């Protein structure tokens, strides 16, 4: 691939497009739909440029490094150095951002036009800004640039979450998000400052060469702070509590962008700080990530099963998938500490591929959910149903997403989870008993999570789209989502299918990242490998062939489908007869006879009752009569599940903070003299500190 332009020009064009999107969104009135469309069109353009830049970096060896001047010049503290540069890792995430963000921007053209009723132009403006800040986070080359872009990203996403702020829950979700993000940013700050002080530089590239010389204690602290900070952004259990609140509250295109891309920036942070800068660490780092990842996968999927709010269900699945990604990261760290870089590359490939995959199918699912929620006006699945007839395009897209997230072939979710299993099984070649036991548990956890995810998406798809409408709102849905929305979904669904069928074609995107972070690249694979297999590196036999042939499977599947269809056409001598459905002798079947989402989830709630602690309320309304209980008119049944982490973990913590704040509040006497005296005291103490504990700066 030969690019006619320099990467700097592409970068500037991308930023200019995004800025135009921001400005056009702000021009004119906030409720101008035309301005919103223009702004989203700029976002699409910016994302296309971003993807082009990313492909240039990944496949064409483009690179750039820009140092921005800080007011005050070079004499200012070196902590404030700002630079943006590219490497394979940033290229990979830039590609994710460009492709998924671009598809979501395309879909937003129609989505915002039809389903968002409040200030669409403002939404579009923040949307473009959000995309730009995420790109800057990924490209940041120094600590200060990173933190600046990171905070901007967080703030902009907060405003997107509270876009429909007239609802109380939305404001509350926004607050939870802001507080958690703040805590996360503090943790990230700690990890980066420890690194900067220890290595004497703020450039990530230089840190990476110097961080090996830090003391083990400092390295451990950096690692833990980074995991807490980035894990919070990614939605890792137990720092995930903001995620199931914020994602459902935001407009659906924003949910898609947050879930599809933004939480991946947390994964990016872990890769940047832990893998790239810190490098190989003690094995407990990897086991910790593996354990947290497994916990997230299970907690996420179990919570998802209990949800009847479609978007909340999807949000909990983000927790699950982040868990799967972190399991891959943890496995890679363990293999690195054991010195097995080929296995580490495989585990990391699984993790980053799943990162890309989850971005694709989760964005697809959220867009589908957004169309249904927008059309029916409710997020409650019990009030949906039958939408497939009015919205076949959306239903097809959602089905693809649901199959992909359930790790069913021939979609991309299968590929990455399969690779992850391969990596886990590879642990048996390491010869360490504790590692083998840990990875056996990890594999079982992953299997359980995948199975439960499939279980959950049968419900999500079936209850939402199939059967009869469960409410009048669902029955009134008459038209499919706008064309641009279906177009955006088709882009994502096509990518899911393509990665699922010919994954080896896309492996080139990951080569540079793997080589840089693990020292081992992909094992050599033949140019025809895409047709036959994925490479499976095994220690001792680097070119051990593939174990599964996606291309052949897909071809066979296609042949089978065509053959079956053909036989049906040829073999159908008599035309099929259509008769009324057997209705068990009742009147015409109604929506009330359908399987409900609650009913579907019941078995799991029973099996995992220790986890859910379900509280069931059932109420009978009697018709009266001689024998009570026989002639019941209506019965209501409702299940609530507990969130012990929030109730016993976060709430006491918050209470503690409030009581501390009240205690500190006594300082606030109300007298202006007291406040001024505090200022003097602070100033004097600072001056004395400067005098006796050395100066700051050069």
């Amino acid at each position, binding site marked *: 691939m030969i690019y006619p332009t320099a990467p700097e020009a592409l970068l500037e064009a991308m930023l200019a497009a995004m800025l135009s999107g921001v400005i056009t969104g702000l021009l004119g009135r906030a409720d101008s739909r035309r301005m919103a469309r223009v702004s989203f069109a700029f976002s699409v353009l910016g994302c296309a440029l971003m993807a082009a830049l990313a492909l240039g970096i990944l496949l064409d060896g483009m690179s750039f490094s820009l140092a921005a001047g800080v007011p005050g010049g070079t004499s200012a503290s070196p902590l404030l150095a700002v630079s943006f540069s590219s490497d394979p890792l940033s290229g990979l995430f830039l590609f994710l951002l460009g492709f998924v963000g671009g598809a979501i921007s395309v879909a937003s053209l129609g989505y915002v036009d039809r389903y968002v009723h409040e200030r669409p132009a403002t939404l579009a403006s923040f949307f473009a800004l959000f995309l730009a800040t995420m790109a800057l986070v990924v490209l940041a080359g120094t600590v200060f640039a990173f933190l600046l872009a990171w905070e901007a990203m967080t703030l902009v996403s907060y405003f997107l979450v509270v876009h429909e702020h007239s609802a109380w829950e939305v404001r509350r979700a926004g607050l939870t998000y802001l507080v958690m993000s703040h805590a996360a940013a503090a943790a990230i700050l700690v990890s980066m400052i420890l690194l900067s002080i220890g290595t004497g530089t703020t450039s990530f590239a230089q840190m990476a060469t110097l961080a090996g010389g830090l003391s083990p204690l400092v390295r451990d602290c950096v690692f833990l702070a980074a995991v807490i900070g980035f894990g919070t952004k990614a939605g890792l259990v137990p720092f995930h509590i903001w995620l199931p609140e914020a994602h459902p509250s935001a407009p659906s295109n924003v949910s898609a962008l947050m879930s599809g891309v933004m939480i991946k920036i947390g994964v990016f942070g872990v890769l940047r700080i832990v893998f790239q800068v810190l490098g190989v660490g003690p094995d407990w780092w990897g086991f910790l990530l593996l354990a947290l990842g497994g916990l997230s996968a299970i907690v996420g999927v179990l919570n998802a099963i209990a949800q009847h709010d479609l978007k909340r269900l999807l949000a909990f699945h983000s927790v699950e998938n982040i868990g799967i990604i972190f399991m891959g990261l943890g496995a890679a760290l363990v293999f690195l500490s054991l010195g097995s870089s080929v296995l580490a590359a495989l585990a990391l490939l699984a993790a980053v591929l799943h990162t890309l995959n989850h971005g694709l199918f989760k964005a697809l699912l959220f867009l589908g959910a957004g169309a249904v929620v927008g059309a029916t006006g409710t997020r409650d699945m019990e009030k949906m149903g039958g939408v497939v007839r009015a919205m076949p395009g959306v239903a097809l897209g959602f089905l693809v997403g649901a199959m992909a997230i359930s790790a069913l072939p021939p979609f991309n979710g299968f590929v990455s989870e399969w690779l992850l299993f391969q990596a886990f099984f590879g642990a048996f070649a390491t010869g360490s008993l504790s590692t083998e036991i840990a990875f056996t548990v990890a594999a079982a956890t992953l299997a359980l999570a995948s199975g439960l995810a499939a279980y959950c998406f049968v419900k999500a798809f079936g209850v939402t789209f199939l059967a009869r409408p469960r409410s009048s709102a669902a029955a009134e849905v008459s038209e499919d989502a706008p064309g641009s929305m279906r177009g955006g979904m088709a882009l994502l669904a096509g990518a899911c299918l393509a990665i699922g069928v010919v994954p080896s074609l896309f492996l080139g995107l990951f080569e540079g990242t793997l080589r840089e972070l693990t020292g081992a690249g992909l094992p050599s694979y033949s140019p025809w490998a895409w047709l036959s297999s994925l490479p499976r590196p095994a220690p001792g036999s680097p070119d051990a062939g593939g174990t599964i042939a996606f291309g052949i499977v897909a071809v066979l599947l296609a042949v089978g489908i065509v053959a079956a269809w053909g036989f049906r056409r040829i073999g159908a001598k008599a035309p099929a007869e259509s008769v009324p459905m057997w209705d068990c002798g009742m009147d015409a079947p109604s929506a009330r006879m359908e399987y409900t989402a609650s009913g579907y989830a019941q078995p799991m709630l029973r099996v995992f009752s220790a986890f859910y602690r379900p509280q069931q309320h059932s109420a009978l309304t009697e018709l009266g009569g001689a024998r009570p209980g026989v002639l019941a008119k209506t019965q209501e049944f409702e299940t609530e599940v507990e969130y012990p982490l929030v109730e016993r973990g976060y709430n006491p913590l918050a209470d503690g903070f409030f009581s501390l704040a009240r205690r500190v509040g006594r300082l606030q006497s109300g007298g*202006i003299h007291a406040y001024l005296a505090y200022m003097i005291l602070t100033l*004097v103490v600072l001056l004395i500190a*400067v005098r006796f504990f050395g100066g700051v700066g050069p």
Partner: protein
Amino acid sequence: MALELCAAVVLLAAWLSLVHRRLEAQIYLYATQSAAIAGIAFLVSILYATPLLAVTGGLIVGLNVVVIPWLLRRILRDLRIPPEINMLVSVRMSALAGLGCLLLSVAVIGPLTPLAEIPAAGLLPIAVTVVLIGLFTTATRRKAFSQVLGILGMENGVFLAGIALTYGLGLLLELGIAANLFVLAIVSRLFLHRMKDTFDTVDADVLRSLEG
């Protein structure tokens, strides 16, 4: 020599403002201090051939020496503020605190190594002293009016620091400070009027009743 003399006037004016009890005199002290700082600005501009600094000096003369004292005296007359200052700390203690400020800033600022490269850096400890004394004044006076005077004194200290460190290269910065100062004077005037209307006093202690 003249530079040192001006600096001494600045310092002395700051210190005297701690011990003088009459508001009228405080205003004159402020004007004197500002005039001395303007003098420093002129001298430094001649010494280091930085004509921009002379502009700053002119600004100071115009604003701090003439306009702001005139505004302050009008407030004093319009609101019929009692001419005596009401202090939380005794005069003797204030005087000692002023000396403490001087000692602290000389002890802290003097040894800072990067300052050795800046010729006029000798002014910096004085500037910091003036800021600290201004802050102390603000904190220990009961009347909102004398607190305003304290803040104006602090601004003078910041001016001086700006001159000492940049020889007027930070003209934009100083213009900013000047504008800030002017706004401050106007806002405090409005504030005092409103306070007098609401509480019938300019004693800042009444604000305690606003505590949330």
